[in-house]
C-alpha cells in the first residue's frame, strides 16, 4: 500500500524501492520475458480487432449497468442466490460480515479478489472476529507477511525463494528447504485443512453473465474451485463493471485476458457457477450462496464521458507489465491497492485524492500501457487528466502556475529564454552547462544539460530560408522550443535535407512551445491557450504538411490538440485539419519525399536507434526511421528494448531524477552493447537525455538527431 503523505516522502519510498536489488532483478526478468510471450500467445489473431470489440462491448455494458444488475439479480435470485448491491466499501464489508454472522461462520477461506482488496475485506472480517485465510499461493505468502500485493497477477513477485522458505519454516515450525517445488507442496498441504474447516468461502469473479445468471471465475491454481465447493457458504464479491450481457462477450474477454496477463492461451481453470449447487456440508445439502456487487464509485464513473472507459478494465495487469516506471519501483510504489497505470487512476476514484496525488505525478507518459491494454483504455491521458483535476481541487503549485503563465505568453517566454542564455554564461563550457547552481543541480548529476544556443533557430531563419522553385509541397515547420533555442542545428539540418528535395519551407514566427510541458504538469487551461496560438500561427489552410522534428511535439500536435480542442465548436474543424497535416520528420522524408538510396552517400558508419515513445507508440511510426537509416548508407544495428523509454519525459526527469537516471542507464547500456558509433533518435528531448548521459559517462558514442545524420549523408 502506498503510504507517503507528500512528494518528499514519496521520493524517499521510491529510493528505497530502487535499492531493492532482488525486486529490481525479478521485475526486470519479467519485463524482458513478457513482450515475446504476449506476442506468441496472440500469434495469428487479430488482437486490435478483439480489443476494439471488447472496448465497445464494455462501453455498452457500462452505459446500462443498472439495468444489467436488475436483470442479473432476478435471474440469480430465481435460483435461490441472494444478490446484494453495496454502494460503498463499508457497506460491502458490512453485508459480508452479516452473512458470516447469520450463518454462524468461524473460519473463512478466500480466493484472490482485487475487489476484496479494494474494500480491505480481510481487515474488516478479522476485526469482527473471523479467521481469514488467503488460498492463492502468492496472496497467502503476503498475508502471512502482513503485506499488500505487488502485482495484480503476481502478488509476491518481490519475494525470493529464501524469504518464502524462512516464512514457511516459521509457519510450520519445521525447517523448510529452499526448493520452490517443495515449498509449493508444503503450501498445498498446509492450505488443504483450511478449506476443510472453513465455513465460508469468499471469491471474486471475472464476470457475471446476465443471459445465463452464472458467474465466471478464472484461476490457475484451482483454489477458487475449492473455495467455492468445500465450505457451506459461498460469497462472491465483484464490481458492477463485471456484468456482461451475454456469454459470448464473456468468452471474448477470456480469449484476451490470460494472453495479455501472462502470455497464456487460457488459465488452467474457468469455472461457471449458477445457483445453489450441491454441498454436502450445508444443512439442506445445497450451497448457501450470496453475490455482492460493489459500486464504490463505479456507477458515477459510468456517467463520466471521459472516465467511463476505466470500467472496461479486465484486470489483466498488462499495463503494469510494460510500465518502465513500475518496473523500477514495484507495486507498493506505483499504486495504492490497484497498481500500474490503471492503479493510478483507480486509486483516485476508489481510494481518494490523498492516496493518488503523489502517484499520478510519477507517470512518464511513455504510452506503453495504452499500447498493450486489453480494453483499449487511453491510460496516460486519463492519468494526466487526474493530475489536472487534483491540481484544480487542491490548488496549483507555484512552479506549475508560473510555467503556465509564462507559456501562455510567447513573447515573455522567448525573452526569458534569451535572458537565460546570458545568465548561463558563467556556467557553460563546450555547449553544456557545467556548474549548475546547487539549488537546481540537486540530483541532476546523472547527465549534463545542454546550454542554450548562441542564436535560436528563429534568428537564423531569415538568413538560411531556402528558395525552392516550383515546390512539390508547401510545408510549415514547427520547431518546438528545444530545437528552436537549444538545438537550432537540428532544424538547420532538416532544412538542408528537405529543401533540396522540393519542399518549400515556412517558419512562422508566432509559433510557441507545443504545450506538452503544461499538460504534464496538469495545467490544462494553459495547454488549450497555447494550442490555439500555434494553430493560428501555422494555419493549416496554408500548408500541405506541418512538419516537426520533435516526436513529442508531433504526437501532442496531432493527438493532444484534438483532445484539448476537439469538443470546442469554435475550434473543432480547424484543429482536425491541423492535426491531419502534422507529420514527423522521418515519415515525411521516407513516406512523402520518398528519398531512396540514390539520394544518399554510402558508408556512413554504424548506428543504433532509440525509438522515442511519442514516435513509435504516440504516432505508430516504426518502420520509416529504420528504413531511412539503411537507405542512407548507414549500418543499422538494432539494440535491445529499442522502444522502451529513455527516461526523459520533460519535467519528469526534473521531478524524479533517480528514476530518470535508472531508465537512462539501461537505455545507454543497451545502445553501447551494439558497438555502433552513433546513436540516432527522432526527438530533441531524447537527444538531450541520451547525449547528456553519454557525455557524463565519458562514452565515445555520439548522439545525432535523424535530421543531422541524414544531412551528413545526403548527396
Amino acid at each position: 500500500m502506498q503510504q507517503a503523505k507528500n512528494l518528499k516522502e514519496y521520493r524517499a519510498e521510491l529510493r528505497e524501492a530502487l535499492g531493492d536489488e532482488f525486486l529490481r532483478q525479478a521485475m526486470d526478468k519479467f519485463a524482458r520475458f513478457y513482450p515475446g510471450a504476449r506476442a506468441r500467445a496472440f500469434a495469428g489473431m487479430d488482437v486490435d480487432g478483439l480489443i476494439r470489440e471488447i472496448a465497445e462491448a464494455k462501453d455498452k455494458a457500462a452505459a446500462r449497468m443498472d439495468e444489467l444488475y436488475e436483470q442479473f439479480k432476478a435471474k440469480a435470485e430465481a435460483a435461490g442466490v441472494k444478490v446484494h448491491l453495496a454502494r460503498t466499501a463499508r457497506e460491502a464489508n458490512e453485508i459480508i460480515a452479516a452473512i458470516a454472522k447469520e450463518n454462524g461462520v468461524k473460519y473463512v477461506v478466500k480466493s484472490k479478489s482485487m475487489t476484496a482488496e479494494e474494500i480491505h475485506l480481510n481487515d474488516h472480517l478479522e476485526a469482527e472476529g473471523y479467521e481469514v485465510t488467503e488460498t492463492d499461493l502468492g496472496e497467502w505468502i503476503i498475508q502471512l507477511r502482513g503485506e499488500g500485493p505487488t502485482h495484480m497477477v503476481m502478488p509476491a513477485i518481490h519475494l525470493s525463494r529464501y524469504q518464502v522458505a524462512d516464512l514457511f519454516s516459521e509457519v510450520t515450525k519445521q525447517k523448510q528447504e529452499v526448493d520452490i517445488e517443495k515449498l509449493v507442496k508444503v503450501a498445498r498441504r498446509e492450505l488443504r485443512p483450511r478449506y476443510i474447516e472453513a465455513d465460508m468461502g469468499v471469491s471474486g469473479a471475472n464476470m457475471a453473465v446476465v443471459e445465463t445468471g452464472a458467474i465466471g471465475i478464472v484461476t490457475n491454481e484451482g483454489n477458487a474451485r475449492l473455495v467455492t465447493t468445500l465450505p457451506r457458504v459461498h460469497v462472491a464479491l465483484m464490481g458492477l463493471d463485471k456484468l456482461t450481457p451475454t456469454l459470448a462477450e464473456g468468452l471474448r474477454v477470456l480469449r484476451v485476458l490470460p494472453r495479455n496477463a501472462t502470455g497464456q492461451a487460457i488459465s488452467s481453470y474457468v469455472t461457471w457457477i449458477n445457483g445453489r449447487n450441491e454441498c454436502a456440508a450445508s444443512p439442506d445439502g445445497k450451497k448457501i450462496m450470496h453475490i455482492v456487487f460493489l459500486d464504490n464509485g463505479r456507477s458515477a464513473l459510468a456517467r463520466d464521458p471521459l472516465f467511463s472507459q476505466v470500467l472496461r478494465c479486465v484486470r489483466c495487469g498488462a499495463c503494469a507489465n510494460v510500465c518502465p516506471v513500475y518496473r523500477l519501483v514495484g507495486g507498493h510504489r506505483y499504486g495504492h491497492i490497484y497498481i500500474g497505470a490503471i492503479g493510478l487512476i483507480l486509486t483516485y476514484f476508489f481510494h481518494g485524492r490523498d492516496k493518488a496525488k503523489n502517484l499520478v505525478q510519477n507517470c512518464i507518459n511513455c504510452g506503453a500501457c495504452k499500447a498493450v491494454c486489453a480494453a483499449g483504455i487511453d491510460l496516460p491521458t486519463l492519468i494526466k487528466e487526474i493530475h489536472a483535476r487534483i491540481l484544480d481541487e487542491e490548488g496549483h503549485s507555484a512552479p506549475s502556475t508560473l510555467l503556465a503563465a509564462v507559456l501562455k505568453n510567447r513573447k515573455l517566454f522567448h525573452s526569458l529564454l534569451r535572458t537565460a542564455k546570458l545568465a548561463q554564461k558563467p556556467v557553460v563550457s563546450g555547449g553544456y552547462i557545467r556548474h549548475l547552481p546547487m539549488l537546481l543541480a540537486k540530483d541532476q548529476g546523472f547527465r549534463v544539460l545542454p546550454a542554450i544556443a548562441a542564436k535560436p533557430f528563429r534568428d537564423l531563419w531569415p538568413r538560411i530560408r531556402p528558395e525552392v522553385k516550383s515546390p512539390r509541397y508547401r510545408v510549415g515547420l514547427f520547431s518546438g522550443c528545444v530545437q528552436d533555442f537549444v538545438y537550432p542545428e537540428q532544424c538547420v539540418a532538416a532544412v538542408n535535407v528537405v529543401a533540396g528535395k522540393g519542399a518549400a519551407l515556412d517558419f512562422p514566427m508566432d509559433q510557441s512551445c507545443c504545450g506538452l510541458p503544461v499538460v504534464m504538469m496538469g495545467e490544462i487551461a494553459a495547454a488549450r491557450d497555447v494550442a490555439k496560438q500555434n494553430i493560428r500561427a501555422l494555419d493549416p489552410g496554408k500548408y500541405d504538411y506541418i512538419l516537426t522534428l520533435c516526436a513529442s511535439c508531433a504526437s501532442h500536435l496531432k493527438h493532444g490538440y484534438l483532445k484539448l480542442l476537439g469538443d470546442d465548436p469554435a475550434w473543432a474543424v480547424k484543429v482536425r485539419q491541423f492535426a491531419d497535416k502534422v507529420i514527423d520528420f522521418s515519415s515525411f522524408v521516407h513516406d512523402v519525399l520518398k528519398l531512396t538510396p540514390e539520394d544518399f552517400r554510402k558508408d556512413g558508419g554504424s548506428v543504433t536507434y532509440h525509438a522515442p515513445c511519442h514516435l513509435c507508440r504516440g504516432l505508430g511510426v516504426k518502420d520509416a526511421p529504420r528504413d531511412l537509416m539503411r537507405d542512407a548508407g548507414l549500418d543499422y544495428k538494432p539494440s535491445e528494448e529499442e522502444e522502451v523509454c529513455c527516461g526523459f519525459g520533460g519535467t519528469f526527469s526534473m521531478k524524479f531524477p533517480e528514476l530518470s537516471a535508472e531508465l537512462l542507464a539501461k537505455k545507454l547500456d543497451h545502445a553501447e552493447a551494439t558497438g555502433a558509433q552513433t546513436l540516432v533518435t527522432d526527438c530533441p528531448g531524447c537527444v538531450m537525455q541520451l547525449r547528456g548521459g553519454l557525455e557524463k559517462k565519458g562514452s565515445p558514442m555520439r548522439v545525432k538527431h535523424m535530421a543531422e545524420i541524414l544531412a551528413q549523408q545526403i548527396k
Partner: protein
Amino acid sequence: MNENRNPVELFEEKAKAVSAVVSKVASMREAVAYALDVCDKKQACQLLVSGCSEPLSEKGQALCETKQQKVIAAPGLSPEFFADLEGSARERGILCIEKGMRDHLGGVDIGFTLADFGIAETGTLVIISNSEELRLATMIAEFHVAVLPQSKIRETSRDLEAELVALTSVQPSYTAFVTGASRTADIERVLALGVHGPLELHILLLED
C-alpha cells in the same frame, strides 16, 4: 491460424503444450485399464508428490495420515464400467469409490472422469461438474484422468457457444473448463504444478 487443422490433432498439441499427458484409446475399457495402470505405477509411498513427505505443521501432518491406501475416485461412470474398474482395482489393492468424497479430503490418487466437450484451440476440457462428488474428484485428486470422446472436440469456444450457453444456464450448475494441471508461478515466477488441484492431467482421447 488454425484453419484446416484437424481439431483432434490441434487439441492434442495444445493440451500437451500446457503439460497434459495425452493418449488415444479405442474403448472405455481401455481407458479404465489406463487409469488403473497409472494408479498402480504411482510410487509405493503414493503421497510423495503432493507434499506429505515435506516437514509439515501438526495440522497438515494429521490430514496426511487420514490417507492409508491408494484410492481411485470415479464418480459419474456408468454402472457397467464402474463395476469393471472396481473389480480390477480390488485385485490390486486399490480402493475404488464413486461417492463419499468428503471422507477423502486428505487426497485421492486418481480422479477418473468423463469430459463433456473439448476446445482444441486451447486444449481445454469442458466438464459438467454439477455433482459435488465429481467436482471434488477433479479437485482433490493428485492425478486427474479424463476421457474425452473425439467427436466432442470443437475448434474454438465460439464453435461451442450454444452448448455453453445451455450448460451454464441450468440452475443450479457448475461448469468447469480445465486446461492442464493446477499451476502457479507465484514464487520467483518459476512454474510449479499441482499447487491446489491435480499435479498431472491425463487426457484419453476416445475414438467414437
